[in-house]
């Protein structure tokens, strides 16, 4: 089980990588969302705010009203942010669950895809 500190570290690294990726910023330039990540095993929650493609805030806790909520084990969340797991595979296996629109889901997956695959 990953600790909240580990997830926080991973999320912060993820933020930096996302904000430093030109193509990703261009792709998400019209996308602004509040995303909550919930660890189902320890109950911790993290907030990620995206404003026109830039991650402007990452923090522990459930801040703001979310448009998307992603639930997974703490291990999977940490691996997700480090790019050590394929979110689509976990999602299609039912191990990552999402509340939100299909379009938002695609954009979140696109973040992982662009960061780690291209």
């Amino acid at each position, binding site marked *: 089980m990953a600790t*909240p500190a580990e997830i926080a570290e991973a999320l912060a690294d993820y933020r930096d990588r996302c904000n430093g990726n030109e193509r990703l910023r261009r792709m998400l330039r019209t996308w602004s969302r509040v995303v909550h990540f919930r660890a189902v095993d320890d109950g911790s929650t993290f907030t990620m705010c995206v404003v026109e493609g830039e991650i402007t805030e990452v923090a522990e806790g459930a801040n703001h009203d979310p448009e998307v909520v992603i639930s997974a084990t703490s291990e999977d969340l*940490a691996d997700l942010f480090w790019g050590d797991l394929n979110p689509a595979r976990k*999602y299609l296996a039912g191990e990552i669950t999402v509340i939100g629109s299909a379009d938002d889901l695609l954009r979140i997956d696109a973040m992982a895809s662009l960061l780690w695959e291209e």
Partner: protein
Amino acid sequence: MVGRPSTLRRSMGLRTVTSTSTGLAFAAIEYLAVASLLVYVAGDLAWVSIAVAGLLALLAWGYFSELSGLYPTAAGIRLFMAKSMDDRAALVITFSYLATIVLVLAADAFIVGSALTHVTGLPAWATGVVVAALLGLATTANLRGITVAGRVQDVTTYLVMAVTVLLGALSLTKTRTAASLAAAHTHHHGVGSFVVAIGLGVLLYSSFEWVTMNAEEVREQRLIPRGMLIALGLLFVACALVSTGMGRLLSSGELASAYPQLFFGKRVLGEAGYVLMCAITLVTAVNTFNGGFITASRFVYATAREGSLPRSFAKLNDRAVPWVPVVALATSSLLASLAVVLAGSFQVLLSTGAALECGVYAVAALCVLRLRKRQAAAEREFRVRAARLACGVGLVLFGVLGLLSSVSVDNETNPLPLAIIAVIAGIASVYVLRYLPRMRAAEEARRAAAPRRRRPPIAVTDPAAITPASAASAATATTPGLPTPVMDAGFLDGTAPTGPDDRP
């Protein structure tokens, strides 16, 4: 699983769930399918076959309500099939299911293209060009990320349904035409025809279940079964009225055309009705192209990301649109449409679609049965009553109807739909059994070769183990307000263990 938050800012209510379910089913092909039904059943009784098909659709509603409640996710169809049968069989069925969407897109492109050609007075050969232009337009809009917003979709769907129901109701006040009486005498109706008509009737409701892919967007999970149920009711009323009206007013030639709804509008409201139905046909096409392209392309994208399709299908353009699936879907639909234009027989498309849809509903019945055994204790938002009986009956009925529909075209025995389905399933099987294992093996090898990026956590007992460079890195990776991460010596000296092989 963590509960749904009550404050999700964007979510679908019952109105949008219903309009989505209705809109996915009510494509332009609906009018054509209703007209084709009159070849099998006398006009005044066509509604009976639609009602019986509706009762069968209620069975399918039960299956998809239970399956969606068990897997409330856009990947539900992929998930419940994979959990209830061999993954290879599930993939073959899933890919064949996708073919239904291609057929509906192709049929709609053909119908709208034919209607436009007719309205503008262009020669018949121009239909192919108009179809290509329509699909090109839809593809361009999709690639540019242009989508019909939920509220607009609500308005257009309810508008289409209202106009259709209104025209259907008005048609009942009209005197039966001599041409319709003559048309009724040209067709031979019997028990066999009635059974095939039920299979075709199932096509009228088909795709209503695709709204289950929006399960993650709804305010409450129970809205999905409710919305689907209302959609089935709306579809029944609209199709029953139109079938009765068409049976009373249209001639044999008008019923056999690719745009019977235009003649129907004209018979009911004169030139105004003709223009109105032209507009309605275009609106249904917008809905179909929007919903069909988006639903299918996202599904193909996810399957590619999962590793079950080539990686090129997961490529995104600068507007976050999976452009390869969109182009592939448009090309497949164009080829199917052009084949119909050249063959001049859209009835083959209808029978193929009806057979595929019946097959999918039979598979859904099987999945409910299997998952009741395999995941007996799993929480379900919705449960089919008398599941063994309901699923057993559905399995047999949908199986028989699918088989009959696949060998009947225009009330004549014709195995072409069966051959088309066999080719689709054959291609999917060869891909899944021969190419997919190799592709997955290559993917596994690629993943195994990739280094694990995650920094393993341990409390640092020896501060000297942290180098200035790594400390600086850790500092930049820290968000204000969040705990400062700690890194272990294993990460620093490169001896950190590698983790499970599930990297992207």
